């Protein structure tokens, strides 16, 4: 029996679709099993087509992107209603994504900065007619509706998505691993004694040794190992885009915890080394952090 699948895109870069299409000929293995009922990125469907479907009629609903506008929220709720199994697909959906970093500022400030004060703006105005309107704060999608499954990644690799689809089709279990990127990384690790942190363009990277040992902020130690250590393998420090392993509640706090243990620097030097801690430690999951939820409550109180 073919499974009916839907892919919904909320606020995101649609990179997850790109990653899925990158399966190339392997797509042919799974496509005969799937009946696509909604996938605006690839097939010409409109929102009303999704709304017209009976409830619980989609076997697998993939939701990509986070809710920044009221329209996103409506689409997410519609997907929930129409799908039997809902899958948070990609870091935006699981944790709020890069756009979650915007939670540092109130939405009014963000809108002004974007539409009125940006250097490239020649006709400053805030578009209002026929617009869905913004949500005040970005939350991870699982805080809005219930999800049966999460698959983080920015984007999840083609293999990740393939594995999930295959597991769902065959009924095999699929759990997120507790391992980290370091477990998949081929580089040689030693005892860590970091005396100075370098930016990626500074110094020369030894391709055989662990990047963190050399003083580059590679976040593989606190990041879930699903990607096959793509970045460290090519000498690029991990940015933590897949988010933390499932047992970790706050990615940035865990990173700080580890850095405090391995950095042999004075407190002042350590503070100076990270002028933008939120940007450095919460690349795609600030919206899922304790601090973001504190900010949300704080703004709510101000409105009252």
């Amino acid at each position: 029996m073919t499974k009916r699948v839907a892919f919904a895109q909320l606020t995101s870069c649609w990179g997850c679709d790109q990653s899925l299409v990158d399966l190339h000929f392997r797509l042919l293995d799974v496509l005969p099993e799937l009946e696509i009922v909604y996938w605006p990125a690839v097939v010409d469907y409109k929102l009303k087509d999704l709304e017209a479907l009976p409830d619980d009629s989609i076997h697998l609903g993939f939701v990509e992107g986070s809710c920044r506008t009221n329209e996103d929220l409506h689409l997410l709720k519609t997907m929930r209603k129409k799908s039997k199994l809902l899958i948070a697909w990609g870091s935006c959906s699981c944790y709020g994504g890069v756009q979650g970093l915007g939670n540092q500022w109130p939405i009014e400030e963000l809108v002004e900065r974007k539409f009125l004060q940006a250097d490239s703006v020649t006709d400053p105005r805030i578009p209002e007619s026929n617009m869905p309107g913004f949500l005040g704060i970005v939350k991870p999608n699982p805080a809005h509706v219930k999800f049966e499954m999460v698959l983080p990644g920015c984007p999840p690799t083609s293999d990740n998505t393939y594995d999930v689809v295959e597991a769902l089709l065959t009924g095999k279990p699929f759990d997120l691993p507790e391992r980290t990127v370091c477990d998949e990384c081929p580089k040689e690790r030693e005892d860590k004694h970091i005396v100075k942190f370098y930016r990626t363009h500074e110094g020369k990277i030894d391709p055989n040794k662990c990047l963190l040992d050399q003083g580059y902020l590679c976040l593989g130690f606190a990041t879930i190992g699903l990607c096959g250590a793509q970045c460290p393998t090519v000498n690029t420090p991990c940015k933590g885009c897949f988010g933390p392993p499932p047992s970790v509640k706050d990615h940035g706090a865990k990173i700080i915890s580890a850095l405090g243990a391995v950095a042999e620097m004075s407190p002042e030097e350590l503070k100076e080394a990270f002028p933008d801690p939120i940007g450095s430690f919460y690349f795609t999951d600030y919206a899922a952090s304790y601090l973001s939820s504190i900010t949300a409550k704080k703004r709510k109180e101000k409105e009252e």
Partner: protein
Amino acid sequence: MTAMADTSSSSTKAKKKRKKGFEPRIVSFCCNWCSYAGADLAGTSRMQMPPNVRIIRVNCTGRIDPSFVLDALAQGADGVLISGCHPGDCHYTSGNLKMRGRFVLLESLVEQAGFDPRRVHLQWASAAEGDVFRDGVTAMVERIKELGPNPAREED
């Protein structure tokens, strides 16, 4: 799965009432070997200090994950006081130095997020310094009273 809990609403009336006679609730993490013993000494010596601090004993300040502190703040603690051995005196040789490194990063993280970093404080108090512990607690309570209730605190 993650830390972001759904924000539930609370009544404005009760909040106003709370601001009036505000008694801060402070969570304090004390290490077993110095500050917890120091706090005990302050107690047995009958030193007077405000009763706003709830002490949680940990074996070493090095055991305190920054997520404990953030979790406490997200759950509505008005302040978090971390108290450990003086640098060089750690029972486990360097746990307090690790906490010191974590603390500066945590402080700058909290500040960047627009949350007053004075709500989080790190102090050193040895097992013999009941008075230092008392002074630390008194200063912390005064500081938090000035800052007012934690804006993230839900109703009781």
